């Protein structure tokens, strides 16, 4: 047998005995099907309970007391009030309980920021691309809340001040960057291992001890701030306990109702017992472990806001409980998968509130509650287990827009697992995404993490990074438009086009193109613009950080982030063991390819002067279609395995990374770059002028680490090769490489073998991240024409997945157009 063929056969033979024995774990039980149907058929809404409770709190006795309290305590009291006063709801069939909002599927409204933009759509909520249903009374109420609270939101407090007004307006005309941190920080992978195994009691006792002994761990006497911090911790823990107790009461009440089957009664009583026990005490069973995670997750969602709140490495965290019950025969794999599916379905109860304007930047209705599976232990040994596979199988049962699934791949990842992950991908939901341990660990080390901590990474939300449970990463602080910096550098800091005839200077003052004598001059101007843009952005984020410390600290997040209880500091005060602020970029390939075009056209082939090229760009290539065609069709582009042009994308990435990493945040943490763009490449694209690579003004930019749509002409292996060839060690917040495969081509065993093999090769070559849609283009076109044709079609947009019907039309078009990889 041929050597390579033999090797492939060996790969295929390595099967997992367990999954051979239980091949049916991907089939949903009737219970799971019923919950899923209910969720899918529920109309989206907005839950106004949280803001209503906040208002009530302010008027309550406690609220009045809180006014004069330390900001940390004031905030903790408000959060505890919300948690303990919200209506507990338990839905039919579910095994994991705890409602995310007061409605079946809804977005929580966060008056502190994050939700205010939805008011822009108030008068046409039902007619939006993603319709939201509210009663007229609720709309009225929403308007009232909006008016009352928008000035006191974090953004309002920070920016509605003398000298900052133009930065406030930037939220409505984002061009160079889009500061997402204004909405909240959220984005966390808490220490769920600690919550599950030790319970919140550990943190509670630690806080109590510090208060009793009046010193922090290292012996330093408590400052008033630290005292308030420890008090805030105890207050929110009490709030969480009350929320859990209320759920237990409801479960017991339900169990006592007539007409409930014995089986369901037993389940409700089990849930009640679980909620009386966790998350305060250590979980005693697999189900309690998940219940514990879920309750803390709900609390974290209600504390900050809903974006990117993630669970981390559940296959590691829960394996002990799972295997103990499996071995004792108390839990069958089928039941385990069912509990896991019920847990995952809970994540579908929530959605973000984005106005249609904001939706251009973050289309897809995703909050990205991430679960990470596979990978290694601190020593680098493979720790993929039965539960890793079971988590994927449970998702195969539900195939919904949430949760986000992330698979870690390293050289000893077992083949059965990688194949199972690819099989899950073949279902067509765009999940899981794949992460290369080697590259990710290296990038985390760059940011100062120890190797052991870096190896314990989990994905936040879409693709962002944390050493789980010990990192405070404002991982989606801001999205950055890189190509516009090139535009500015070619026009002395002004945009090519603009409504203002005088063309106000917008970026840094850089030399006119007539003075740029070499390609290096262009690069320096580009660098100057990037640095300027980044500094401006950092300035605004710093203001926000200061507001957060006072008006939006997050004690629950601080409990699940190592370091805070030792230092006696909230995460927003710099309590986390690792502290990061992460920036994402859009248009990397556009910037790289454009730099290449300038270099070749102007400086190497000397076909025209730089100012002649810039004039053409200012005129958006009008009358220069031949040149534009040549740039698009005859010039090489990133993503085709051509090292010469890929080097320019590297250059663009380095200029950006260097600018980011030169800053520190006000908590003492590092700024780190990530290479992904949600759907910002569309919003930013609209504001960006023509580019030297032939892209017309207003067109979307390239997304994440992906090549420009349609210009990856050598197939998927070349895309992977180009991506893997880039040096990613500075990209601490990871990257997103989007690929699309035609379902017809990568179906079945052949497709599985092919995808498994090319992903493995990509990671062997140092690849960091890849995510793919396996889709039938025809199906998508059908869904575009008739939204009712495929109501539950899930696609991967950027770092996250969404129902196709929830996407903005131009995002839908983009997904359809993205090169259907797979020639032949």
């Amino acid at each position, binding site marked *: *047998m*041929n*050597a*390579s*063929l*033999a*090797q*492939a*056969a060996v*790969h295929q033979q390595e099967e997992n005995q367990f999954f051979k024995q239980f091949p049916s774990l991907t089939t949903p039980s009737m219970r799971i099907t019923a919950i899923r149907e209910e969720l899918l058929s529920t109309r989206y809404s907005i839950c106004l309970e949280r803001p209503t409770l906040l208002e009530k709190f302010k008027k309550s006795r406690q609220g009045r007391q809180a006014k004069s309290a330390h900001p940390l305590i004031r905030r903790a009291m408000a959060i505890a009030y919300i948690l303990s006063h919200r209506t507990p709801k338990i839905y039919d069939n579910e095994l994991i309980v705890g409602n995310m909002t007061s409605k079946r599927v809804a977005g929580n409204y966060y008056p502190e920021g994050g939700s205010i933009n939805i008011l822009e759509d108030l008068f046409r909520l039902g007619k939006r691309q993603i319709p939201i249903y509210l009663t007229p009374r609720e709309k009225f109420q929403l308007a009232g809340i909006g008016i009352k609270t928008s000035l006191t939101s974090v953004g309002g407090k920070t920016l509605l001040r003398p000298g900052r007004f133009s930065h406030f307006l930037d939220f409505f005309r984002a061009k160079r960057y889009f500061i997402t941190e204004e909405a909240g920080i959220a984005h966390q992978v808490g220490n769920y291992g600690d919550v599950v195994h030790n319970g919140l009691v550990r943190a509670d006792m630690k806080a109590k001890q510090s208060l009793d002994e009046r010193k922090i761990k290292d012996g330093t006497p408590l400052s008033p701030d630290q005292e308030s911090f420890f008090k805030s911790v105890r207050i929110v823990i009490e709030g969480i306990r009350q929320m859990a107790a209320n759920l237990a009461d409801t479960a017991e009440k339900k169990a006592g109702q007539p007409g409930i089957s014995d089986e369901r009664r037993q389940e409700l009583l089990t849930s009640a017992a679980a909620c009386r026990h966790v998350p305060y005490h250590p979980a005693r069973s697999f189900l309690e472990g998940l219940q514990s995670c879920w309750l803390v997750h709900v609390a974290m969602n209600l504390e900050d806001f809903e974006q990117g709140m993630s669970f981390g490495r559940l296959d590691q965290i829960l394996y002990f409980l799972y295997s103990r019950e499996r071995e004792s025969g108390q839990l069958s794999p089928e039941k385990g998968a069912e509990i896991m599916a019920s847990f995952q379905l809970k994540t579908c109860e929530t959605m973000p509130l984005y106005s249609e304007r904001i939706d251009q930047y973050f289309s897809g209705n995703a909050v990205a509650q991430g679960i990470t599976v596979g990978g290694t232990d601190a020593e680098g040994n493979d720790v993929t287990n039965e539960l890793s596979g079971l988590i994927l199988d449970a998702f195969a049962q539900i195939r919904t827009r949430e949760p986000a699934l992330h698979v870690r791949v390293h050289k000893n990842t077992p083949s059965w697992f990688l194949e199972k992950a690819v099989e899950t991908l073949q279902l067509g939901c765009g999940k899981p995404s794949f992460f290369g341990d080697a590259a990710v660990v290296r990038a985390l080390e760059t940011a100062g993490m120890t190797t052991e901590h870096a190896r314990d990474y989990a994905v936040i939300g879409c693709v962002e990074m944390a050493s789980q449970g010990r990192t405070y990463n404002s991982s989606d602080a801001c999205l950055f438009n890189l190509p516009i910096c090139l535009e500015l550098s070619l026009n002395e800091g002004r945009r090519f086009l603009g409504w203002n005839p005088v063309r106000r200077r917008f970026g840094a003052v850089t030399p006119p193109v007539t003075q740029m004598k070499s390609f290096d001059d262009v690069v320096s101007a580009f660098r100057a613009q990037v640095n300027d843009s980044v500094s401006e952005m950092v300035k605004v984020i710093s203001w926000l950080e200061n507001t957060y410390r006072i008006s939006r600290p997050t004690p629950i997040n601080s409990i699940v982030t190592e370091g805070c209880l030792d230092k006696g500091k909230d995460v927003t005060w710099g309590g986390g063991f690792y502290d990061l602020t992460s920036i994402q970029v859009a248009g990397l390939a556009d910037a790289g390819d454009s730099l290449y075009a300038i270099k070749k056209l102007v400086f190497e082939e000397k076909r025209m002067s730089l100012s002649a090229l810039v004039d053409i760009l200012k005129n958006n290539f009008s009358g220069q*279609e*031949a*040149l*534009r*065609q*040549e740039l698009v*069709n*005859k010039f090489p582009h990133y993503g085709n*395995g051509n090292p010469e042009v890929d080097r320019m994308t590297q250059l663009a990435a380095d200029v950006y990374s260097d600018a980011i990493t030169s800053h520190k945040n006000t908590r003492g943490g590092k700024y780190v770059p990530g290479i992904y763009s949600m759907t910002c490449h569309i919003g930013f694209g609209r504001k960006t002028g023509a580019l030297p690579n032939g892209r017309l003004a207003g067109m979307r930019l390239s997304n994440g680490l992906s090549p420009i749509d349609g210009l990856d002409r*050598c*197939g*998927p*292996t*070349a895309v992977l*090769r180009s991506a893997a060839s880039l040096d990613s060690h500075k990209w601490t917040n990871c990257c997103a490489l989007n690929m699309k495969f035609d379902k017809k*081509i*990568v179906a*079945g*065993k*052949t*497709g599985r*073998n*092919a995808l*498994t*093999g*090319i992903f*493995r*090769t990509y990671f*062997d*070559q140092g690849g960091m991240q890849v995510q793919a849609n396996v889709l039938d283009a025809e199906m998508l076109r059908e869904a575009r024409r008739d939204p009712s044709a495929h109501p539950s079609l899930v696609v991967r947009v950027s770092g996250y997945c969404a129902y196709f019907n929830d996407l903005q039309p131009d995002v839908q078009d983009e997904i359809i157009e993205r090169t259907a*990889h*797979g*020639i*032949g």
Partner: protein
Amino acid sequence: MESGDMGHSKDPAVFSIQHFCLHDGPGVRSIVFFKGCPLRCSWCQNPESWRTAPELAFKAHLCIDCKTCVNACPQQAISAPGHRDLQKCGQCFTCVENCPSGALVCFGKYYTVEDVAEALRPEFPYFENTGGGVTFSGGEPTLFPSFITGLSNRLHKEGIHTAMETCGYFDPETDTRFLSDMDLVLFDIKLFDEPAHLRFCGKSNTYIKKNLTRLAGMAFAGTGPDIWPRLPLIPSITDTTENLTGWAQFLDSIGIHYLTLVPYHNLGGSKRQWLNLPPAPEFSALTDERLGDAAKLLEQHGISCFAPGEEDWVQIDFKTASGNRKVT
């Protein structure tokens, strides 16, 4: 690279090298498409593979009417975009080079063995991780026996699996060494009836049957590559009971009991338009039902049927077939 040098060479012109192909042999493969084919099957979807020499094509839908080609042609052979005086044209392809939109393209470029091997090299790791390799296709690779021997040996040196897709039309008396240098031959069969073959494919099928018999013998004796037949299903032409039965019995008689059925889809004749060829005759697309019927009939004759890319390669005993082949 001698690619621009038009006058020379027994080296073949290659009109495309495609990567990540999953349907032409095991694993992830790259296909090298050679230019030149002895047959002219009326349903052919790759008319650019017919002629041996590189040739110019015009994709009207991409043309932006910039007239660069008109001005660039040293022979003044182009009067207007898309209108080339074949008499005047010196096949220099300056127009192609200068056309900004990709409307003018040249199918075929001369390659050396080393050029092809280098173009394939970046794909080697994907082959390794998927049990894939390189497939020579066309056109008809057997038109270039010494080249493909060289290339196959070159690839074998690096441990790469090689396959060849052939229409089977070559002189059966020819030296068979170039065949033994392959790991796998995908052998395309079309019409069993000789006059019908002559009519639809332009040549008799006598050579084809002889070669298939001979290759099967070599495969089973362990002196040749593994062999796997493929049959394109053209409604009412190749999917008739008569044709299918004919081939089934023939395959059975030479000991082959597996076959890939390649369903015909009418993808539109735009390539012929680009090459200024008369449009292809219209065949109706193959329905799933007809495909099912054909498979059923063949299965009744003991032939297992497969879709392209879904073959069960274990059906062929790779060990005996390649046991005496040196693969380093």
